[in-house]
Protein backbone atom coordinates (compact mmCIF):
# COMPACT_ATOMS: atom_id res chain seq x y z
CA UNK A 1 0.00 0.00 0.00
CA UNK A 2 1.89 3.09 -1.20
CA UNK A 3 2.28 6.13 1.04
CA UNK A 4 2.04 9.55 -0.57
CA UNK A 5 3.77 12.51 1.03
CA UNK A 6 3.03 16.08 0.07
CA UNK A 7 6.28 17.99 0.11
CA UNK A 8 6.64 20.77 2.61
CA UNK A 9 3.31 20.23 4.36
CA UNK A 10 3.84 17.23 6.63
CA UNK A 11 0.69 15.73 5.06
CA UNK A 12 0.84 12.06 4.12
CA UNK A 13 -1.68 9.35 3.40
CA UNK A 14 -1.98 5.84 2.03
CA UNK A 15 -3.52 4.72 -1.22
CA UNK A 16 -5.43 1.55 -0.38
CA UNK A 17 -6.01 -1.40 -2.73
CA UNK A 18 -9.49 -0.24 -3.69
CA UNK A 19 -8.57 3.39 -4.36
CA UNK A 20 -8.16 4.37 -7.97
CA UNK A 21 -6.21 7.64 -7.81
CA UNK A 22 -3.99 9.84 -5.64
CA UNK A 23 -6.57 12.60 -5.33
CA UNK A 24 -9.40 10.51 -3.95
CA UNK A 25 -7.03 8.63 -1.64
CA UNK A 26 -5.96 11.97 -0.14
CA UNK A 27 -9.48 13.35 0.17
CA UNK A 28 -10.73 10.13 1.73
CA UNK A 29 -7.97 10.54 4.32
CA UNK A 30 -9.42 13.98 5.07
CA UNK A 31 -6.76 16.18 3.45
CA UNK A 32 -7.63 19.31 1.48
CA UNK A 33 -6.01 18.44 -1.84
CA UNK A 34 -6.99 21.11 -4.36
CA UNK A 35 -9.52 19.78 -6.89
CA UNK A 36 -12.77 20.51 -8.66
CA UNK A 37 -13.90 18.21 -11.44
CA UNK A 38 -12.27 14.88 -10.45
CA UNK A 39 -12.47 13.96 -14.14
CA UNK A 40 -9.32 15.24 -15.86
CA UNK A 41 -10.99 18.34 -17.21
CA UNK A 42 -10.22 21.31 -14.97
CA UNK A 43 -6.56 21.08 -13.93
CA UNK A 44 -7.04 22.19 -10.33
CA UNK A 45 -5.41 19.00 -8.97
CA UNK A 46 -2.11 19.34 -10.87
CA UNK A 47 0.98 18.08 -9.08
CA UNK A 48 4.70 17.60 -9.63
CA UNK A 49 6.17 14.19 -8.98
CA UNK A 50 9.32 14.53 -6.87
CA UNK A 51 10.01 10.87 -6.03
CA UNK A 52 8.47 7.51 -6.87
CA UNK A 53 6.58 5.89 -9.72
CA UNK A 54 3.03 6.42 -10.89
CA UNK A 55 0.56 4.91 -13.32
CA UNK A 56 -0.91 7.52 -15.64
CA UNK A 57 -3.56 5.86 -17.80
CA UNK A 58 -4.71 9.11 -19.48
CA UNK A 59 -1.60 11.27 -20.12
CA UNK A 60 -3.50 13.41 -22.62
CA UNK A 61 -6.38 14.40 -20.32
CA UNK A 62 -7.85 17.69 -21.58
CA UNK A 63 -6.78 19.64 -18.48
CA UNK A 64 -3.10 19.16 -19.34
CA UNK A 65 -1.90 21.95 -21.61
CA UNK A 66 1.21 21.72 -23.79
CA UNK A 67 2.89 23.79 -21.09
CA UNK A 68 1.90 21.32 -18.38
CA UNK A 69 3.22 18.38 -20.36
CA UNK A 70 6.48 20.25 -21.05
CA UNK A 71 6.87 20.92 -17.34
CA UNK A 72 5.98 17.36 -16.34
CA UNK A 73 2.82 18.22 -14.43
CA UNK A 74 0.34 15.44 -13.71
CA UNK A 75 -3.27 15.29 -12.55
CA UNK A 76 -3.89 13.74 -9.14
CA UNK A 77 -7.37 12.63 -10.26
CA UNK A 78 -5.87 10.61 -13.14
CA UNK A 79 -2.74 9.09 -11.55
CA UNK A 80 -2.29 6.17 -9.21
CA UNK A 81 0.80 5.55 -7.08
CA UNK A 82 2.81 2.43 -7.95
CA UNK A 83 5.39 3.03 -5.19
CA UNK A 84 5.69 5.40 -2.26
CA UNK A 85 5.61 8.96 -3.58
CA UNK A 86 6.71 12.46 -2.72
CA UNK A 87 4.67 15.04 -4.63
CA UNK A 88 4.37 18.79 -4.70
CA UNK A 89 0.74 19.82 -4.69
CA UNK A 90 -1.46 22.61 -3.39
CA UNK A 91 -3.57 21.84 -0.35
CA UNK A 92 -5.96 24.16 1.41
CA UNK A 93 -8.46 23.62 4.22
CA UNK A 94 -11.24 24.90 1.91
CA UNK A 95 -10.86 21.67 -0.10
CA UNK A 96 -10.96 19.32 2.88
CA UNK A 97 -14.11 17.23 2.69
CA UNK A 98 -16.94 18.13 5.06
CA UNK A 99 -18.26 14.56 4.80
CA UNK A 100 -15.42 12.11 4.21
CA UNK A 101 -15.87 10.32 0.88
CA UNK A 102 -16.47 6.58 1.01
CA UNK A 103 -16.32 3.87 -1.65
CA UNK A 104 -18.95 1.13 -1.60
CA UNK A 105 -20.88 -1.16 -3.90
CA UNK A 106 -24.53 -0.15 -4.18
CA UNK A 107 -27.55 -1.84 -5.75
CA UNK A 108 -29.91 -0.24 -8.23
CA UNK A 109 -33.26 -0.14 -6.44
CA UNK A 110 -35.28 1.69 -9.11
CA UNK A 111 -34.99 3.43 -12.45
CA UNK A 112 -37.45 5.75 -14.16
CA UNK A 113 -37.45 7.61 -17.47
CA UNK A 114 -37.61 11.35 -16.85
CA UNK A 115 -37.23 12.56 -20.47
CA UNK A 116 -36.24 10.80 -23.68
CA UNK A 117 -32.58 10.93 -22.62
CA UNK A 118 -32.57 11.46 -18.83
CA UNK A 119 -33.15 8.57 -16.45
CA UNK A 120 -33.48 8.67 -12.67
CA UNK A 121 -31.34 5.96 -11.06
CA UNK A 122 -31.76 5.21 -7.33
CA UNK A 123 -29.00 3.24 -5.68
CA UNK A 124 -29.21 1.60 -2.29
CA UNK A 125 -26.11 1.58 -0.09
CA UNK A 126 -25.34 -1.67 1.76
CA UNK A 127 -26.91 -1.94 5.23
CA UNK A 128 -28.78 1.30 4.46
CA UNK A 129 -25.71 3.24 5.60
CA UNK A 130 -26.52 6.96 5.80
CA UNK A 131 -26.22 8.79 2.48
CA UNK A 132 -24.05 11.63 3.78
CA UNK A 133 -23.50 14.50 1.37
CA UNK A 134 -24.48 18.11 0.87
CA UNK A 135 -27.13 19.17 -1.67
CA UNK A 136 -25.35 19.89 -4.97
CA UNK A 137 -22.46 17.44 -4.52
CA UNK A 138 -21.50 14.56 -6.78
CA UNK A 139 -20.14 11.01 -6.63
CA UNK A 140 -17.95 8.91 -8.92
CA UNK A 141 -19.72 5.87 -10.38
CA UNK A 142 -17.75 2.85 -11.64
CA UNK A 143 -18.98 -0.51 -12.91
CA UNK A 144 -17.69 -3.47 -10.87
CA UNK A 145 -15.81 -4.58 -14.01
CA UNK A 146 -13.85 -1.32 -13.98
CA UNK A 147 -15.67 0.80 -16.58
CA UNK A 148 -15.62 4.38 -15.36
CA UNK A 149 -15.37 6.25 -13.14
CA UNK A 150 -17.65 9.11 -14.17
CA UNK A 151 -18.82 11.98 -12.00
CA UNK A 152 -22.59 12.33 -11.53
CA UNK A 153 -24.42 14.71 -9.21
CA UNK A 154 -27.00 13.48 -6.77
CA UNK A 155 -30.53 14.83 -7.30
CA UNK A 156 -31.92 13.91 -3.88
CA UNK A 157 -31.09 15.04 -0.36
CA UNK A 158 -28.84 13.38 2.20
CA UNK A 159 -30.84 10.71 4.02
CA UNK A 160 -30.70 8.00 6.63
CA UNK A 161 -32.05 5.35 4.26
CA UNK A 162 -28.91 4.94 2.16
CA UNK A 163 -30.52 6.19 -1.06
CA UNK A 164 -28.30 7.87 -3.66
CA UNK A 165 -30.45 9.26 -6.48
CA UNK A 166 -29.03 10.53 -9.78
CA UNK A 167 -30.65 12.05 -12.86
CA UNK A 168 -28.29 11.00 -15.62
CA UNK A 169 -28.38 12.10 -19.22
CA UNK A 170 -27.33 9.65 -21.89
CA UNK A 171 -24.25 11.08 -23.52
CA UNK A 172 -24.12 10.24 -27.23
CA UNK A 173 -21.36 7.65 -27.62
CA UNK A 174 -20.69 7.71 -23.86
CA UNK A 175 -19.26 4.40 -22.66
CA UNK A 176 -20.40 4.71 -19.06
CA UNK A 177 -23.74 6.49 -19.48
CA UNK A 178 -24.53 4.13 -22.38
CA UNK A 179 -23.86 1.12 -20.17
CA UNK A 180 -25.92 2.59 -17.32
CA UNK A 181 -28.85 3.05 -19.70
CA UNK A 182 -28.55 -0.23 -21.61
CA UNK A 183 -27.22 -2.71 -19.09
CA UNK A 184 -28.13 -1.66 -15.61
CA UNK A 185 -31.40 -3.11 -14.35
CA UNK A 186 -32.92 -3.15 -10.88
CA UNK A 187 -30.73 -5.32 -8.69
CA UNK A 188 -27.60 -4.42 -10.72
CA UNK A 189 -24.47 -3.22 -8.94
CA UNK A 190 -22.39 -0.08 -9.20
CA UNK A 191 -19.44 1.24 -7.19
CA UNK A 192 -20.23 4.62 -5.64
CA UNK A 193 -17.35 6.81 -4.43
CA UNK A 194 -18.34 10.08 -2.83
CA UNK A 195 -19.35 12.66 -1.97
CA UNK A 196 -17.16 15.19 -3.77
CA UNK A 197 -17.52 18.74 -5.00
CA UNK A 198 -17.68 22.33 -3.84
CA UNK A 199 -20.89 23.52 -5.52
CA UNK A 200 -22.97 22.59 -2.51
CA UNK A 201 -25.78 24.56 -0.93
CA UNK A 202 -24.51 27.36 1.34
CA UNK A 203 -27.26 27.05 3.92
CA UNK A 204 -25.73 29.81 6.04
CA UNK A 205 -26.01 32.43 3.27
CA UNK A 206 -28.81 34.95 3.76
CA UNK A 207 -29.14 35.56 0.02
CA UNK A 208 -31.92 34.34 -2.23
CA UNK A 209 -30.98 31.44 -4.48
CA UNK A 210 -30.45 31.44 -8.23
CA UNK A 211 -30.23 27.98 -9.83
CA UNK A 212 -29.22 27.87 -13.49
CA UNK A 213 -29.28 24.45 -15.14
CA UNK A 214 -28.66 23.27 -18.66
CA UNK A 215 -29.44 19.71 -19.80
CA UNK A 216 -28.09 17.15 -17.32
CA UNK A 217 -27.26 19.98 -14.92
CA UNK A 218 -30.82 19.55 -13.66
CA UNK A 219 -29.69 16.85 -11.20
CA UNK A 220 -27.68 18.92 -8.70
CA UNK A 221 -29.99 21.93 -9.13
CA UNK A 222 -32.91 19.78 -8.09
CA UNK A 223 -30.95 18.76 -5.01
CA UNK A 224 -30.14 22.40 -4.21
CA UNK A 225 -33.78 23.50 -4.58
CA UNK A 226 -34.96 20.57 -2.48
CA UNK A 227 -32.33 21.46 0.11
CA UNK A 228 -33.54 25.05 0.37
CA UNK A 229 -37.22 24.14 0.71
CA UNK A 230 -36.69 21.31 3.17
CA UNK A 231 -34.31 23.23 5.47
CA UNK A 232 -36.26 25.11 8.16
CA UNK A 233 -33.26 27.43 8.64
CA UNK A 234 -33.63 28.66 5.05
CA UNK A 235 -37.29 29.53 5.40
CA UNK A 236 -37.04 33.11 4.16
CA UNK A 237 -35.11 32.31 0.96
CA UNK A 238 -36.68 32.45 -2.51
CA UNK A 239 -35.47 30.17 -5.30
CA UNK A 240 -35.25 31.40 -8.89
CA UNK A 241 -34.86 28.26 -10.97
CA UNK A 242 -33.81 28.63 -14.63
CA UNK A 243 -33.64 25.54 -16.78
CA UNK A 244 -32.57 25.54 -20.41
CA UNK A 245 -33.17 22.69 -22.82
CA UNK A 246 -32.94 22.33 -26.58
CA UNK A 247 -36.64 21.57 -27.05
CA UNK A 248 -39.65 21.30 -24.69
CA UNK A 249 -39.00 17.53 -24.48
CA UNK A 250 -35.81 18.26 -22.53
CA UNK A 251 -37.56 20.26 -19.81
CA UNK A 252 -38.06 18.44 -16.56
CA UNK A 253 -37.96 18.84 -12.81
CA UNK A 254 -41.13 20.89 -12.40
CA UNK A 255 -43.17 17.95 -11.08
CA UNK A 256 -40.54 17.26 -8.43
CA UNK A 257 -40.33 20.93 -7.44
CA UNK A 258 -44.11 21.32 -7.26
CA UNK A 259 -44.47 18.76 -4.48
CA UNK A 260 -42.06 20.62 -2.20
CA UNK A 261 -43.62 22.51 0.70
CA UNK A 262 -43.77 26.23 -0.07
CA UNK A 263 -43.33 25.76 -3.83
CA UNK A 264 -46.10 28.22 -4.73
CA UNK A 265 -44.73 31.02 -2.61
CA UNK A 266 -40.99 30.46 -2.91
CA UNK A 267 -40.02 28.82 -6.21
CA UNK A 268 -39.97 30.74 -9.48
CA UNK A 269 -39.47 28.22 -12.28
CA UNK A 270 -38.36 29.61 -15.65
CA UNK A 271 -37.94 27.08 -18.42
CA UNK A 272 -36.51 28.06 -21.80
CA UNK A 273 -35.55 26.32 -25.01
CA UNK A 274 -32.70 27.08 -27.38
CA UNK A 275 -34.06 25.45 -30.58
CA UNK A 276 -37.51 27.03 -31.07
CA UNK A 277 -37.48 26.28 -34.81
CA UNK A 278 -38.10 22.64 -33.89
CA UNK A 279 -41.07 23.46 -31.64
CA UNK A 280 -43.41 26.01 -33.23
CA UNK A 281 -46.00 25.36 -30.51
CA UNK A 282 -43.67 26.68 -27.75
CA UNK A 283 -44.74 30.05 -26.41
CA UNK A 284 -42.26 30.41 -23.53
CA UNK A 285 -38.79 31.94 -23.47
CA UNK A 286 -36.30 31.06 -26.17
CA UNK A 287 -32.53 31.55 -26.42
CA UNK A 288 -29.51 30.68 -24.34
CA UNK A 289 -30.27 30.40 -20.67
CA UNK A 290 -27.57 32.90 -19.61
CA UNK A 291 -29.13 35.53 -21.89
CA UNK A 292 -32.57 34.92 -20.44
CA UNK A 293 -31.25 35.21 -16.88
CA UNK A 294 -29.48 38.45 -17.79
CA UNK A 295 -32.59 39.92 -19.43
CA UNK A 296 -34.84 39.05 -16.53
CA UNK A 297 -32.63 39.66 -13.49
CA UNK A 298 -29.95 41.95 -14.98
CA UNK A 299 -29.20 44.53 -12.34
CA UNK A 300 -30.25 42.51 -9.31
CA UNK A 301 -27.98 39.52 -9.97
CA UNK A 302 -25.43 40.42 -7.30
CA UNK A 303 -27.99 39.81 -4.54
CA UNK A 304 -28.14 36.06 -5.28
CA UNK A 305 -26.17 33.01 -4.23
CA UNK A 306 -25.72 31.46 -7.69
CA UNK A 307 -25.55 27.72 -8.45
CA UNK A 308 -24.78 26.55 -11.99
CA UNK A 309 -24.65 23.16 -13.65
CA UNK A 310 -24.63 22.10 -17.27
CA UNK A 311 -22.40 21.69 -20.30
CA UNK A 312 -19.08 23.61 -20.07
CA UNK A 313 -19.97 26.25 -22.72
CA UNK A 314 -23.15 27.06 -20.80
CA UNK A 315 -21.33 27.24 -17.45
CA UNK A 316 -18.57 29.44 -18.91
CA UNK A 317 -20.98 31.80 -20.68
CA UNK A 318 -23.12 32.05 -17.56
CA UNK A 319 -20.16 32.67 -15.25
CA UNK A 320 -18.89 35.42 -17.54
CA UNK A 321 -22.30 37.05 -17.67
CA UNK A 322 -22.73 36.89 -13.88
CA UNK A 323 -19.34 38.50 -13.27
CA UNK A 324 -19.13 40.99 -16.12
CA UNK A 325 -22.74 42.14 -16.48
CA UNK A 326 -24.10 41.12 -13.08
CA UNK A 327 -21.14 42.18 -10.88
CA UNK A 328 -21.60 38.98 -8.89
CA UNK A 329 -18.51 38.32 -6.71
CA UNK A 330 -16.70 35.04 -7.53
CA UNK A 331 -17.45 33.73 -4.04
CA UNK A 332 -21.21 33.76 -4.78
CA UNK A 333 -20.89 31.61 -7.92
CA UNK A 334 -20.82 27.84 -7.39
CA UNK A 335 -20.26 25.14 -10.02
CA UNK A 336 -18.30 21.92 -10.48
CA UNK A 337 -16.82 21.85 -13.95
CA UNK A 338 -17.16 18.20 -14.95
CA UNK A 339 -20.19 18.14 -17.23
Amino acid at each position, binding site marked *: MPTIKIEGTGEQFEQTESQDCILRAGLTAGYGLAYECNSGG*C*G*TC*KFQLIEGEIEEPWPTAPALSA*RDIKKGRKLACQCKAKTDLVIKM*RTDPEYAPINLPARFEATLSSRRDVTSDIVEFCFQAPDSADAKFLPGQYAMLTFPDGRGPRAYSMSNLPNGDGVWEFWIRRKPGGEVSGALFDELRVGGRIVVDGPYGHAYLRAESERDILCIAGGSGISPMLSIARGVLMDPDMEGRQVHFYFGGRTPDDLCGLDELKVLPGFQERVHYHPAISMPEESPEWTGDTGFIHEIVENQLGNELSRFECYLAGPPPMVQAT*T*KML*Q*LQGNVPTGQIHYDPFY
Partner: protein
Amino acid sequence: MNDANDRKHFYVCKEDDLADNEMVRIDPPDQPPVVVYKVGGNFFATDNTCTHGEASLAEGEVDDDFIIECPFHGGTFDIRTGEAVDFPCVLPLKSYPVTVEGGCVYVNLDEGKAPA
Protein backbone atom coordinates in the same frame (compact mmCIF):
# COMPACT_ATOMS: atom_id res chain seq x y z
CA MET B 1 16.36 54.77 -3.64
CA ASN B 2 12.61 54.67 -3.35
CA ASP B 3 10.42 57.46 -2.18
CA ALA B 4 7.48 55.46 -0.84
CA ASN B 5 5.13 58.28 -1.76
CA ASP B 6 6.27 58.39 -5.34
CA ARG B 7 3.53 56.28 -6.80
CA LYS B 8 4.15 57.45 -10.33
CA HIS B 9 7.77 56.35 -10.18
CA PHE B 10 7.76 53.37 -7.84
CA TYR B 11 11.06 51.51 -7.69
CA VAL B 12 10.79 47.76 -8.34
CA CYS B 13 14.27 46.27 -8.80
CA LYS B 14 17.40 46.43 -10.90
CA GLU B 15 16.94 45.60 -14.55
CA ASP B 16 19.28 42.62 -14.19
CA ASP B 17 17.59 41.24 -11.08
CA LEU B 18 15.07 39.43 -13.29
CA ALA B 19 15.85 36.98 -16.08
CA ASP B 20 13.38 36.50 -18.91
CA ASN B 21 10.15 34.78 -17.85
CA GLU B 22 10.74 35.77 -14.24
CA MET B 23 8.64 38.06 -12.14
CA VAL B 24 8.64 39.79 -8.80
CA ARG B 25 5.83 40.79 -6.50
CA ILE B 26 5.82 44.25 -4.94
CA ASP B 27 3.68 45.42 -2.06
CA PRO B 28 3.18 49.17 -2.38
CA PRO B 29 1.59 50.90 0.60
CA ASP B 30 -2.16 51.51 0.41
CA GLN B 31 -2.91 49.27 -2.52
CA PRO B 32 -3.10 45.59 -3.38
CA PRO B 33 0.13 43.92 -4.51
CA VAL B 34 1.45 44.27 -8.05
CA VAL B 35 3.58 41.82 -10.04
CA VAL B 36 6.29 42.94 -12.46
CA TYR B 37 7.26 40.52 -15.26
CA LYS B 38 10.23 40.37 -17.62
CA VAL B 39 9.54 38.75 -20.98
CA GLY B 40 11.68 39.11 -24.12
CA GLY B 41 13.82 41.68 -22.32
CA ASN B 42 10.83 43.94 -21.68
CA PHE B 43 9.00 44.65 -18.44
CA PHE B 44 5.27 44.53 -17.75
CA ALA B 45 3.19 44.95 -14.61
CA THR B 46 -0.29 43.87 -13.51
CA ASP B 47 -2.23 43.39 -10.31
CA ASN B 48 -0.85 40.37 -8.49
CA THR B 49 -4.10 38.89 -7.20
CA CYS B 50 -5.99 36.67 -9.61
CA THR B 51 -9.51 37.96 -10.26
CA HIS B 52 -10.88 34.46 -9.89
CA GLY B 53 -9.50 32.75 -6.84
CA GLU B 54 -7.40 35.03 -4.59
CA ALA B 55 -4.16 33.43 -5.82
CA SER B 56 -0.83 35.29 -6.05
CA LEU B 57 0.09 35.39 -9.74
CA ALA B 58 3.76 35.87 -8.83
CA GLU B 59 3.65 32.19 -7.85
CA GLY B 60 2.34 31.24 -11.26
CA GLU B 61 4.26 30.93 -14.51
CA VAL B 62 4.85 33.33 -17.36
CA ASP B 63 6.15 32.28 -20.77
CA ASP B 64 7.40 33.88 -23.99
CA ASP B 65 3.82 34.23 -25.16
CA PHE B 66 3.15 37.01 -22.59
CA ILE B 67 0.62 34.81 -20.80
CA ILE B 68 0.65 34.49 -17.01
CA GLU B 69 -0.90 31.28 -15.76
CA CYS B 70 -2.49 31.35 -12.33
CA PRO B 71 -1.07 28.69 -9.99
CA PHE B 72 -4.49 27.73 -8.59
CA HIS B 73 -6.85 26.91 -11.45
CA GLY B 74 -4.70 27.40 -14.53
CA GLY B 75 -6.68 30.40 -15.77
CA THR B 76 -4.58 32.92 -17.73
CA PHE B 77 -4.13 36.63 -18.43
CA ASP B 78 -2.23 38.63 -21.04
CA ILE B 79 0.45 40.50 -19.05
CA ARG B 80 0.58 43.30 -21.65
CA THR B 81 -3.05 44.34 -21.18
CA GLY B 82 -4.37 42.48 -18.12
CA GLU B 83 -7.04 40.86 -20.28
CA ALA B 84 -8.42 37.51 -19.03
CA VAL B 85 -7.59 34.87 -21.67
CA ASP B 86 -8.53 31.42 -20.36
CA PHE B 87 -11.39 30.27 -18.11
CA PRO B 88 -11.97 30.29 -15.19
CA CYS B 89 -10.48 33.79 -15.30
CA VAL B 90 -13.15 36.17 -16.55
CA LEU B 91 -12.51 39.61 -15.09
CA PRO B 92 -9.40 41.48 -16.29
CA LEU B 93 -6.47 42.62 -14.17
CA LYS B 94 -5.25 46.19 -14.13
CA SER B 95 -1.97 46.68 -15.97
CA TYR B 96 0.56 49.41 -15.17
CA PRO B 97 3.14 51.30 -17.24
CA VAL B 98 6.73 50.25 -16.52
CA THR B 99 9.90 52.21 -17.34
CA VAL B 100 13.58 51.35 -17.14
CA GLU B 101 15.94 54.20 -16.29
CA GLY B 102 19.64 53.85 -15.57
CA GLY B 103 19.32 50.10 -15.04
CA CYS B 104 16.41 50.48 -12.58
CA VAL B 105 12.82 49.37 -13.13
CA TYR B 106 9.94 51.64 -12.07
CA VAL B 107 6.20 51.17 -12.22
CA ASN B 108 3.60 53.94 -12.40
CA LEU B 109 1.00 52.85 -9.86
CA ASP B 110 -1.28 55.81 -10.60
CA GLU B 111 -1.89 54.74 -14.18
CA GLY B 112 -3.30 51.26 -13.60
CA LYS B 113 -5.87 50.46 -16.27
CA ALA B 114 -8.18 47.57 -16.97
CA PRO B 115 -8.77 46.82 -20.65
CA ALA B 116 -12.05 48.15 -22.05
